[in-house]
């Protein structure tokens, strides 16, 4: 270390979590090509998420879903100046190493891709690039934060256009945090055991009444109203996957979802944003998907 007054320290926890803080109130859009990334940026995305196939296609085509081709990720980074995130498979730390070498701004260790390890998630503290991870409940969120995640998104059920799982997961996480906040210290020890998370982190969440990282929501958001619903339920922002580029008019729908996310508490603005968007993505009811095919059940 040189003179403290001139040293610059990168990749600290504050710097990693800080980028997510700057994305709050915004919409992060799934893209598979540089052209889609440009459309997303022009429509007002705060960041784009690069992946090989959008969840709706992963669902319909089947097979193993992996990290995107580095050429595609390079192309997306070159096409836009907003942050670029990219997905790695759960536990696939080499895909994560590649994404870091490609200089993406955030890595999503994602259940939407086929898991590479059914026991271990990636040790995210080892990386300089920050990670976002999915969670269906508070315990899962806290375990991911313990592993080094700098941002959490509730999982929902990706590729369905059915917002019900997203609703369930954000309500669950918010409800469990509220319950922690009302507990005494002796109860928090038991809560930590039941959440399967470290006591110190559980106590921190109880005292603050919120996670120590930003909490977005994802999985099934397809309309401006869906995005506003997530925001009214307490999400810090929204990921939209198949909902945009599987719809009739992606640019217009993307811009409308951005408006509804900012004015989530103003029904007149959301109504205006919802007009004339053309066809939404064809949806699948989560209840029609056999349990083994539900992506949100990947990760633990």
């Amino acid at each position, binding site marked *: 270390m040189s003179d403290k007054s001139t040293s610059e320290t990168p990749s600290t926890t504050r*710097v990693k979590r*800080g*980028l997510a*803080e700057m994305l709050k109130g915004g919409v992060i859009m799934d893209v598979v090509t540089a052209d889609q990334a440009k459309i997303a940026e*022009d429509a007002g995305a705060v960041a784009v998420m690069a992946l090989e196939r959008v969840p709706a296609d992963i669902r319909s085509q089947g097979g193993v879903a992996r990290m995107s081709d580095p050429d595609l990720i390079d192309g997306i980074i070159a096409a836009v100046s*907003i*942050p670029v995130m990219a997905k790695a498979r759960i536990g696939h730390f080499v895909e994560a190493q590649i994404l870091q070498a490609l200089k*993406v701004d955030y890595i999503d260790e994602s259940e939407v891709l086929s898991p590479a390890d059914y026991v271990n998630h990636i040790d995210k503290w080892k990386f300089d690039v920050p990670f976002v991870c999915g969670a269906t409940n508070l315990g899962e969120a806290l375990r991911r934060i313990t592993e080094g995640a700098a941002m959490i998104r509730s999982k929902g059920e990706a590729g369905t256009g059915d917002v019900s799982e997203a609703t369930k997961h954000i309500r669950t996480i918010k409800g469990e945090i509220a319950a922690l906040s009302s507990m005494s210290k002796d109860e928090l020890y038991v809560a930590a055991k039941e959440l399967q998370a470290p006591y110190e982190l559980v106590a921190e969440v109880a005292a603050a009444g919120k996670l120590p990282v930003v909490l977005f929501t994802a999985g099934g958001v397809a309309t401006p109203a869906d995005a506003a619903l997530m925001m009214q339920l307490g999400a810090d922002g929204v990921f939209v996957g198949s909902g945009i580029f599987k719809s009739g008019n992606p640019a217009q729908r993307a811009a409308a979802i951005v408006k509804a996310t*900012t004015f989530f508490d103003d029904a007149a603005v959301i109504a205006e944003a919802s007009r004339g968007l053309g066809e939404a993505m064809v949806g699948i009811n989560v209840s029609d998907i056999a349990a083994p095919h539900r992506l949100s059940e990947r990760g633990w």
Partner: protein
Amino acid sequence: MAGSSLTESSGAPVGVLALQGDFREHIAVLKSLGADAVGVRRPAELAAVSGLIIPGGESSVMDKLSRLFDLAEPLKKAIADGLPTWGTCAGLIMLADTILDGIEGQQSLGGLDIAVRRNAFGSQLDSFETELAIPVLGETAVHAVFIRAPIVETTSSTVTTLAALSDGRVVAVEQDNLLGTSFHPEMTGDTRFHEYFLEKVAGR
């Protein structure tokens, strides 16, 4: 510092542009200093404030939303009329007369006679924390967080440089009632920059 009593005397709250970004953090710091603070998303809300902070976030998104919801013109007018305004990170970009490396068609509100380069350091891997000497805030260095931060590349003679990195790159400026910082004082718990801004609001 008498930020609280000074702002109360002006009667009107301090606004934080709340289209996108970390506006809640600014509101929380202002309130911790005893100031009345509100989010601003509409022209009527802007008309009621005594000062304005434009927070960190994505400048291209703030630009788009401010124009779509008819806030950009009232903002430009308020700034031109002397509303004390401080931009942090994305907010600095919004206040710059000239944006370098903006997205296609990106506009700023302007006010600060400077050229600001967006994402000047590179990707998130180049984001960092450091200690900055800011003489107007006292002798103790300010701990500053830079996240995909912009830098001030050129300044006119009417602009005062408040802070620069060790290599000379300018990261905090002042021009009359306007302040701009590349970094995020709302993230560190050091409230001196907010107090400095509140004095500006009170002294108008």
